[in-house]
């Protein structure tokens, strides 16, 4: 992993987001360097998705600033914002492919920011882009499915198509919002490995949200924990034990009752989360 001295790829400073009465994010500060693979860890409702959507300019901050690839998103004009989004790819929990289009057409939509005007039907895409899309499909192992309708594929396959669509953007940054939360364990493995491989080969900067501690530990370079819209943990993943994360983050709750119990424990026991995190990270490293 190369560490650069140049400016970071993503800089989030004092980001606060309110949806009416709900405070989705509070004073989040985060910088991501080029080539880093960062896991955003948190329970559902902790603000992971909202944070990711800010990085792609899909949400605008209530307060604070988000700078991506040297450009401050809140200040961008729509056209410049679209251009920037073209360099930041995103994959979603529900894949979000257009069900009635072919797999190939779905991959091609990743190139929309590179072409002028709308596209409808394969014939409206230049052969060079079609060839490029097929190459990406080959990379995710779905070349033979190019002309199937997207909704004929299994969940794991659809997510791989979504990864190919992301690659079609030739992105600098890859954002993944719970990419395996809707998949079975086997497909999850395939998808997570694929993202990691591609990130390494293409030197992508990755920010991926997850809610499973197990998955996060073996996968990312760095783990950022979110709770109630606040960063409560920010530490390199290496040498970090599951127990250590659990202590900060709490067990993975599956029911509302469990969640409430954990929240209560955490609120009662844990000191200010963000202050505690480096201390623990230091402890784990030593």
């Amino acid at each position, binding site marked *: 992993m190369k560490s650069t001295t140049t400016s970071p790829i993503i800089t989030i400073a004092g980001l606060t987001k309110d949806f009416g009465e709900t405070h989705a994010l509070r004073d989040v500060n985060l910088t991501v360097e080029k080539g880093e693979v960062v896991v955003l860890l948190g329970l559902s409702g902790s603000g992971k998705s909202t944070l990711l959507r800010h990085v792609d300019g899909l949400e605008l901050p209530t307060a604070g600033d988000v700078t991506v690839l040297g450009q401050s998103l809140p200040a961008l004009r729509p056209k410049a914002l679209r251009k920037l989004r073209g360099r930041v790819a995103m994959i979603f929990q529900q894949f979000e492919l257009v069900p009635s289009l072919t797999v190939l057409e779905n991959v091609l939509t990743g190139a*929309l920011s590179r072409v002028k005007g709308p596209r409808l039907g394969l014939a409206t895409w230049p052969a060079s882009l079609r060839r490029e899309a097929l190459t990406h499909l*080959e990379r995710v192992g779905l070349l033979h499915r190019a002309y199937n309708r997207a909704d004929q594929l299994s969940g794991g396959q659809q997510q791989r198509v979504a990864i190919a669509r992301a690659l079609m953007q030739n992105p600098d940054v890859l954002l993944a919002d719970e990419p395996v939360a809707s998949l079975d364990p086997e497909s999850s493995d395939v998808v997570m490995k694929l993202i990691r491989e591609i990130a390494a080969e293409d030197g992508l900067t990755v920010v991926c949200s997850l809610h499973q501690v197990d998955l996060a530990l073996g996968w990312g370079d760095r783990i950022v924990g979110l709770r109630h819209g606040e960063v409560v943990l920010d530490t390199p993943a290496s040498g970090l034990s599951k127990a250590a994360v659990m202590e900060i983050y709490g067990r993975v709750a599956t029911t509302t009752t469990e969640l409430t119990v954990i929240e209560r424990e955490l609120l009662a026991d844990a000191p200010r989360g963000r202050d505690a995190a480096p201390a623990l990270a230091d402890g784990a490293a030593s």
Partner: protein
Amino acid sequence: MTATTTTPGSATSGAALPRRPRISTNKVIAGAVIVAMAGFAIWSLAQIDFSLYNFQRSMLSLAKTIRLMDPISFPSVPDLVYLISLTLGVVIAGTVVAAVISMPIAYLAAANTAPNRTSRVIGRAIGVITRAVPDVILAMAIGLMFTLGATWAGVLAIGFHSIGMISKLFADAIEQIDEGPRLAIRAAGGSKAQEFWSGVFPQVFPSWIATALHRFDINVRGSVILGFAGVGGLGYRMYIDFQQFPQGFGPALGIAIVIFLLCVATELVSSTIRVRLLGAQPTRRTLGDALMRQTRGRRKTTTAATLSTADLTVEKAMRRPWNSSRVSSTVWGWVGILVVIGGFAMSRLDPNQIMWKYVWSTIMSFWPPSTGAYDTQTFVTAIVQTLQMAFAAALLTFLVSLVFGSLAARNIAPNGWVRGAFRVFLVIFRGVPELVLAIVLIIITGLGPQAGVLALAFGGVGLLGKLIADSFEEVDAGPEQAVRATGAGRLQVFGSATLPQGLPSLLGNTLYLLDTNIRSATVLGIVGAGGIGFYLTVSAGLTKTHPVVSAIIGIIIAMVLVVEGIASYLRSVFK
């Protein structure tokens, strides 16, 4: 920080608190509105003379007409082919025009694609206005811009009037899409136009085609009356025949039979396309759909478009294989294009038929609206008469449909035979175009609202009966079983479990029927049923009286808006 500590507790207690039941003033008002509407309907029905004397008189006039008219006859085959192709051409061309114009209007009107609030209002307003202007009136009024016998008026009138329904249903479809793919395209840097064409349009394309086809069916039925406005085709031939009283009634009835068969045929075709190609659920709402449901089991599954994995390369994959799905979409694509081209060709539109020097003056002649030579009293009487027809017909339809619809519902009918028989009744009722029915009834009962009410009521039973049957079949079977388990009889189960559950949709569907009845009642006035439609017909033919047409159309729009407003209020209260 203090907010954080209170959040979990308040969240759980908020969810756990049950809401105290309260008698809402809204329900009281809504109840009063329903009672008032029902009262008006009963009064309307009482006002319309269905006395025995009238009935006898009608029967006598029917007997006399039958005795005097020529035998039912059909045009010669070449003549028939010409008439059918002209009618279909006008309808296809008009529907295509409307479908294309509806797309940007639906884009403006749908909540999720509308650029802003104003555009939504404009989009919806265009929908309401185009729906409120009957195509036949428009055809009469703009007919002055074209040479005699031109089909322009028909195509433009259908094109204008159909925008209302197509854009509304299309906007609804846009609002129901999965927003995810669209978000993904935005996240990838797509522009607004790219979002629509790549993320929205592929999702709504089937419903756009299905809506256009549905409208096509309706327009084929409606083409009868366009003949009364001088638009060539089957309707016009029927109109000419009817002018020769009473001998011409035989050939006119022959044309009516041809129109009925044409309606059935086009419905079958459009249902086949909707169900087979677009994957729409057959609804049984139309005759075609009903038949399609019978044959659906034989639908073959499309073979997967998967390429063979053996030494597959990117270059090989560049060539899309001609599998069955590609073949069928290509073939159907070309068929669609040919039908559209053929439709325009058959409609025989000729730019030379446009009398350019009259175009602008005709358009401007509608402004400003005015009541012309009529006094307010005349107008009020006419409006009340139209409303009476709509309400009286809705009441008749409601009563008959409740019985027919219930007996056509699987969970109410005593056995499959009864259900089947009533389903068939409803399908036949729907199959007869209302206007043909109205014209036939006018022969029987003479001019006047009786014929209009009966025609509307008959046509309505087909629709409302079917909607009632469907909504009863959709109720939760649990309560029915529970009531049956207590030892209740068939009627008791119906009254205690089925009816209460089906009541909201019963109300909604009846209001929808009332809404369409007001529009139809206006059109029926044109063929002689009286009411505001009569004054429309009288005023549409002369440029001088065009201000009266715009005044009446304004009144119709207002009536429809009031009924729509009441309907949406009642629906929100009884949700």
